[in-house]
């Protein structure tokens, strides 16, 4: 996957259905942050992050702070609130998984200003959008096709998935749809 970067000092949201490639996009962001020598934090609400596949994708795990929240939404939001106030992290990612969280507008604005002050990129990955108008960019991932693989006629493994991304909200550009990409399963 090509170089991906979340904007610093802004909130970026990636939403999508399960297996639509939203986590792959998150891992790509973590990879690029770590490869540039910076540090990232991942608040993993449902503890679904797989270090092995992240390392395989090129994430330098030494530069990643992984916070596992055991399915507790409130804990995850408090952890994000702490991390975005700690200057020095290039990226703070919140993976909400399949949890549907409603965030009051006041809290969303609070996060927005904290992110701007600490100059950190906040990336929120989930099923639905969380921060409303506070997000600078919102992307939806959509699955288009899948490929199976195996030595014989009956496939034994999922090989790769084709995904497209659509911009739902962009403060500086109109919504648009990008060309689809393949990602490894």
């Amino acid at each position, binding site marked *: 996957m090509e170089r991906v970067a979340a904007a610093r000092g802004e909130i970026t949201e990636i939403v999508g259905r399960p297996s639509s490639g939203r986590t792959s996009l998150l891992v790509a962001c973590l990879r690029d942050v770590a490869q540039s020598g910076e540090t990232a934090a991942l608040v993993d609400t449902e503890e679904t992050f797989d*270090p092995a596949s992240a*390392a395989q994708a090129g994430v330098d795990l030494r530069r990643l702070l*992984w*916070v596992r929240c*055991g399915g507790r939404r409130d804990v995850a939001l*408090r*952890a994000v609130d702490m*991390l975005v106030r700690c200057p*020095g992290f290039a990226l703070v990612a919140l993976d909400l998984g399949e949890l549907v969280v409603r965030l009051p507008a006041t809290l969303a604005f609070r996060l927005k200003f904290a992110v701007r002050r600490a100059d950190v990129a906040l990336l929120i990955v989930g099923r639905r959008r969380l921060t409303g108008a506070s997000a600078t960019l919102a992307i939806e991932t959509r699955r288009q096709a899948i490929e199976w693989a195996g030595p014989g006629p009956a496939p034994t493994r999922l090989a790769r998935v084709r995904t497209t991304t659509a911009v739902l909200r962009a403060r500086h550009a109109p919504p648009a749809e990008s060309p689809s990409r393949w990602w490894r399963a």
Partner: protein
Amino acid sequence: MAGVSRFACVLVAHFAAAAVERCEPALREQPLAVLTQTANIKILADANAAARERDVRSGMTETEAAARCPTLVTRPHIEEHVAAARHALLEAALAVSPRIEDGGAGIVYVDTAGLDRLIGDPEAIGRRLVHQARTVGLVARVGVAGSRTAARVAAASASVPVTVVAPGRERAALAGVPLGVLDLDPPLAATLARWGVRTLGEMAALPREGVTMRLGPAGLRAHDQALGRDHEPFRPWTPPPFWEEAQGVEWEIESLEVLTVVLEPVLTRLCGRLGAAALAADVLDIRLGLASGGHHARVVSLAYPMSEVKPMLALVGLDLEAHPPPAPVTRVAVSAHPIRAQMGQGGLWQPPVPAIRDLVSVLARLAALVGTDSLGSPTLVDSHRPDAFAMLAFSPPTEPDAPAVVGERPARVDAQHVVACAGPWRASGEWWDTEAWARDEWDVALGDGALCRLARDRLTGHWYLDGLYD
């Protein structure tokens, strides 16, 4: 001035009251008295200047003092306060001169020999001492003279922060000072008062033999002091191997929030002392006196040597939250293991990483939130099990990454791929000497178009950027 001894005396008046004011700075402007319990009566052990202006004196009963000054604030005499303030004053003086002497509570003698080249004239040395005392929360006066006695008398009798007695002018400078500054024994003071001796000049004018015959060794010592002579040799003081601050409270503390409020000034004083000596704390020993009579002790290992109050307080608070005291707290004592901190600076071209003091604090808070097992950097373990990983403490590397190498050739520099590469150009020299060197040089073209020369030290294996073609 070479060869002539000069001493400074750092004097904190009404020291017991000053020690209380150091713990509660809000009391500085109010009339304050420190009480001791004798039988069933509370007696004034000391009073600050504001109380003395209202005719409150040591030795009065609390009732008498309250009658003279209705707005008088009283505090019990706590020995730990005085001991901590005494140590703090000694350490403050030690930051100016390596040769100091403990002259008792609130008095420190400083040998100023050689300080003129480092700090300046005696006036500047005095100002530096006053400033150092202020950094540890004490308001001091300084006298500088040819002897410790003359310096102390000059400091005690002056109304300005710094008094300098010119060399050889000690006797003249002290002549008009009242005899009361010498703190003589009451019988001796009464005898001299009957003789009509009221100033140091009148005492110095008495015949020495006659004073010795009539008043004995105490009179001879007083005569020497009046002349500005030291009676005893200089006894240098060295800092003790512990740094401790304590706070007693008059009520029982049951909640952690209130305990944090009490801990903050204790840590502030401790950090002030550490900062004055250019030290940092590595480990804190917290000792809480409990209402049940027992103690609750905690050892808090700080993640990095620090002398800042805020992160220290956060770490202590989080530790006490995880291990709360079993009973209400009535006394707090904190001692630090001091070490000399090495200052560091990040590389100009390195990307910013979280400052250690911020990171330590946020990691401690996150650990309290999600648990220590759920926090850290994942690392893969050598196993065929698909979900095998281990969690390590989060400690991002601070050094820039060495270029990724495929075989012998560099393949990636930072985030940029090497698209073309020439080398190695091998060079070595001085292999016959201790300063031997050997390196491989590579000219590379990076993905962003940059052309640079990389070098690998063959002796250490380290890679570095040798130059950029432009």
